[in-house]
């Protein structure tokens, strides 16, 4: 399969990115990663807990996936930039999934703070993948600034509401020349397939898998959905029509008249 995803010079065979939040155990997370086929997995940065059981870093290293640190929980550009720099120290990666949140009820991105943080991190040599709204203009501004991809939301984080504005996602795909990764809002496999059919280059799923009744089955479902959606996109769907079009020719139709 040569249809791989390239972000900032890195090649990924899987177009599914996985979040690690919400899994009931590290064992289940490891199983879900394997079932998902994902090669790029996001982690948050938090205070060391001396009482913590097991190491997330060890689990991810055993799963042979790349870490994508995020700045989840940051409400200002300053905090996000500092978190990214700490992540670079901790994990020896200059990749960051940049999240700058506006408020805790919606967890929607704070656009001015996001732009400020993106600019600073790009200038500092980071490969920045910003979590952004489904606004094509904001996406273009982020890419103009040097972001390596954009990660527009389908709907609010953890809401499972799917893609509320598919037209905007299509517009973002048209507006930028970097990978578009649908982030946030995925509820089930059909949402992931739709994202790919709309032209997204990849899908990021976290809660949809972690909080499913069977996370491992859902991880596998997402894997197939992303592959199916990608194939459908590249295959080219038929145009929508108001009236039926027969798939069977009229030619050779018998005459049963009496």
């Amino acid at each position, binding site marked *: 399969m040569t249809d791989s995803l390239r972000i900032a010079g890195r090649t990924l065979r899987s177009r599914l990115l996985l979040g690690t939040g919400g899994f009931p155990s590290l064992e289940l997370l490891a199983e879900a990663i394997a079932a998902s086929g994902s090669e790029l997995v996001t982690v948050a940065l938090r205070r060391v807990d001396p009482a913590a059981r097991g190491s997330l*870093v060890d689990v991810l290293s055993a799963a042979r996936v790349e870490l994508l640190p995020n700045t989840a929980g940051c409400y200002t550009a300053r905090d996000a930039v500092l978190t990214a720099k700490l992540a670079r120290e901790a994990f020896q990666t200059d990749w960051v999934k940049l999240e700058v949140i506006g408020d805790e009820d919606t967890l929607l991105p704070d656009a001015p703070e996001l732009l400020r943080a993106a600019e600073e991190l790009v200038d500092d040599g980071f490969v920045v993948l910003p979590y952004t709204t489904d606004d094509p203009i904001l996406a273009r501004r982020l890419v103009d600034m040097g972001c390596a991809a954009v990660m527009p939301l389908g709907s609010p984080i953890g809401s499972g509401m799917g893609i509320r504005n598919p037209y905007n996602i299509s517009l973002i795909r048209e507006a930028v020349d970097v990978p578009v990764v649908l982030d946030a809002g995925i509820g089930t496999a059909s949402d992931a397939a739709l994202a790919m059919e709309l032209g997204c280059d990849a899908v990021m799923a976290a809660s949809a898998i972690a909080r499913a009744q069977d996370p491992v089955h859902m991880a596998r479902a997402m894997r197939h959905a992303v592959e199916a959606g990608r194939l459908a996109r590249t295959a080219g769907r038929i145009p929508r029509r108001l009236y039926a079009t027969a798939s069977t020719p009229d030619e050779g139709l018998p005459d049963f008249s009496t």
Partner: protein
Amino acid sequence: MIMVNGENADLQAGETLAAVLVRLGLTITTQGVAIAVDGEVVPRAGWETFMLAEDARVEVLTAMQGG
């Protein structure tokens, strides 16, 4: 008072970040760890020599599930 991850660490000024790590059951070679002091990153290479001021606020961070 020197604060480590939001708690009084009972450390003296002049002690290094290596001492902070020991308190948390870590060493300077533990992978996947980063340290900020007073809102600035302290690179790993400086952990053994960085001396804490009397009112230092230290954050010792690692990977957690999230995002």
